[in-house]
């Protein structure tokens, strides 16, 4: 992770969820604190000055939206990502209108949360050197929309190229089916037919980019999704 240790505050009353998030996000190289009540959260917002706040909307005594509104009224410079089980479109709109930067419905997949966190923190940092889209001997060229492996050109359909590009951009980490459904198929949620489509599409991609080669780059992470990485790295 090329970012400086960004500070993240989690306000979440469910202890198990909170613990899992802390350990998962810490493992990704962030400085993480957790609060289980709104009051504790306010205190940490001021003392810890996080760059990003992960906010649960259903807190004891106080609605998460009130917390958000107060933080916004104080003009604190912090990005806010709402985590909630209220998934209706209206809830989403209300959250964003109250000043949240992003909104993720529970249950979410952890890789998706990490992708959102990275995106939110990156969005406000100076643009970095665009690293070449390469995984092992697999290389992508977005200008010509072509892919090659070991110098050999791969014949990909448009959808396969988009999928591969997404996997390459997220190389080294796991991409969940939810993320693919939303970002590649532009479906609002994951459901049985789309799961099947994703699985078949991944199988076809694998046939083209991995089957002819000895080193397999596209891994299935059982229960979570898929990951593009060099096996030994």
């Amino acid at each position, binding site marked *: 992770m090329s970012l400086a240790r960004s500070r993240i505050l989690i306000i979440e009353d469910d202890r198990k969820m909170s613990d899992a998030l802390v350990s998962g996000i810490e493992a990704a190289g962030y400085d993480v604190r957790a609060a289980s009540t709104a009051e504790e959260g306010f205190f940490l917002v001021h003392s810890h000055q996080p760059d990003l706040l992960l906010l649960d909307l259903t807190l004891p005594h106080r609605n998460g939206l009130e917390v958000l509104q107060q933080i916004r009224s104080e003009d604190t410079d912090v990005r806010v990502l709402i985590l909630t089980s209220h998934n209706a479109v209206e809830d989403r709109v209300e959250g964003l209108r109250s000043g949240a930067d992003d909104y993720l419905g529970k*249950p979410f997949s952890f890789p998706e949360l990490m992708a959102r966190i990275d995106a939110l923190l990156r969005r406000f940092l100076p643009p970095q050197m665009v690293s070449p889209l390469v995984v092992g001997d697999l290389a992508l060229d977005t200008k010509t929309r072509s892919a090659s492996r070991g110098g050999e050109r791969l014949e990909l359909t448009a*959808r396969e190229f988009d999928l591969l590009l997404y996997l390459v951009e997220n190389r080294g980490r796991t991409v969940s*089916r939810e993320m693919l459904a939303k970002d590649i*198929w532009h479906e609002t*949620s*994951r*459901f*049985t*037919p*789309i*799961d*099947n*489509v994703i699985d*078949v*599409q991944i*199988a*076809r991609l694998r046939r083209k980019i991995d089957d002819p080669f000895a080193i397999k780059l596209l891994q299935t*992470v*059982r*229960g*979570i999704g898929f990951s593009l990485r060099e096996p030994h790295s």
Partner: protein
Amino acid sequence: MRAPLSTSLRTRLTLWYLTVLALLLLIYATFVFAFQYAVLTRQIFHDEVQDAVTVEGLLYFDSHGVLQLQQDYYSRPQSHLLIDRLMEIRDLSGKTLYRSPTLGGMPLGGPLKNGEGDDGFNERIIRLADGSHALIISHIHTMQGRTMVIRLGYSLAPLRTRMLQFLLLLLIAIPGALIVAGAAGQMIARRGLRPLKEMTARAEGINANNLHDRLRVRNTNDELGQLASVFNHLLQRLEHAFQQMKRFTADAAHELRTPLASIRTVSEVALERAQEPEQYRDALAGILEEAARLNETINGLLLLARAEATEPGDEQTVFSAKELVDEVLSVLGVLIEEKHIAILQDDESIAARTTRGDRALLRIAFMNVLHNALKFSPPDSVLRISYSRSADKVRIAFHDQGPGIAPEEKQRVFDRFYTSSSQATVSGSGAGLGLSIAKLIIDRIGGTIGFEDSMQGARCVIELPLSG
């Protein structure tokens, strides 16, 4: 007149009925009274005219030149015409020539008017000095070269007394009639509404536990019978919906419990004693898969609730069915390619017709139906999509070459969480909700979905309302 709303229907009906009756009786009484008065007055006038003619023949001047009335003429001297007659005769200068004793010296009317009695009888009502009223007539009479005006009349007092009695009679009779009619009205209304009371008592006793109870229908042709029938139909639909909900809740609990059970067992086994990291990883992945299944079931249930809450007319857009089918086919494209299924579309010109509804929901419906058809299609088979139209519907038939659906399962495949015994190939999560979601969505926009008989494979037919 507005009866307070708190009174019973029976009382209100009776009150209305009585009000109308009272009004009618009053109008009737007024009319009868006026008619009677006019007839009697007319009768007096006729008597007076007749009397005047008679009197003319009985007048004479005696030797002193005084006007006299011959008194012994009447065959019936007791006639009230004679006894009650008021008469006064004046010459044209206004001098009174004769005045009947019945007048008691009072003049009969004021001074002579110009031309009084010249033409006709000038009947009129005057007021005498003693305050009583009389209906009088005037008539010109010439006798022995002298012209005179005969004024003749009768007092109206007896007539008025009689009319007053008549009025009193009417005023006593009307309230009496109203009381009798009111009592009868109450009784009739009570009899008429008795079934309603019974229905109320019975309906009060119906609750979730005895929704199968029905109201008794006495007569299917009268209004109350119809009400009872309608109520029974409502109860039937309620009972059906309630049963469905009960079954659904049980099914949902089962559907949620199954993955929960495996999560629990897998976790417990994994924690029982130390294991290899690979085994832990396996257990956790299994748990995640079950969690995904739980989530998908919950999403399906929420989608059902959302579809259930839509009313026809909500969030409607107009779009072509063909375009929607093509969009779904393109999303499912890899599945079609992977199985080498050929898609044949017929009569696409019909499909260009537009339909209306919540497009996002309909897209899910088509996605589920097509996915289902593809799932059961064998590799290298044909999926035929044909369009046709009836009066105000567009029909879309999806005909696959899969194993088909047994006749007795054609309805049940749309039941929530239904998994067919012959369709044992149901794969993974969210199973059993796809077709019921599709059916609910299509039903809600006024369409239909069902499986038709076919020689081979399943033939799913969807009818959607045309957008006009």
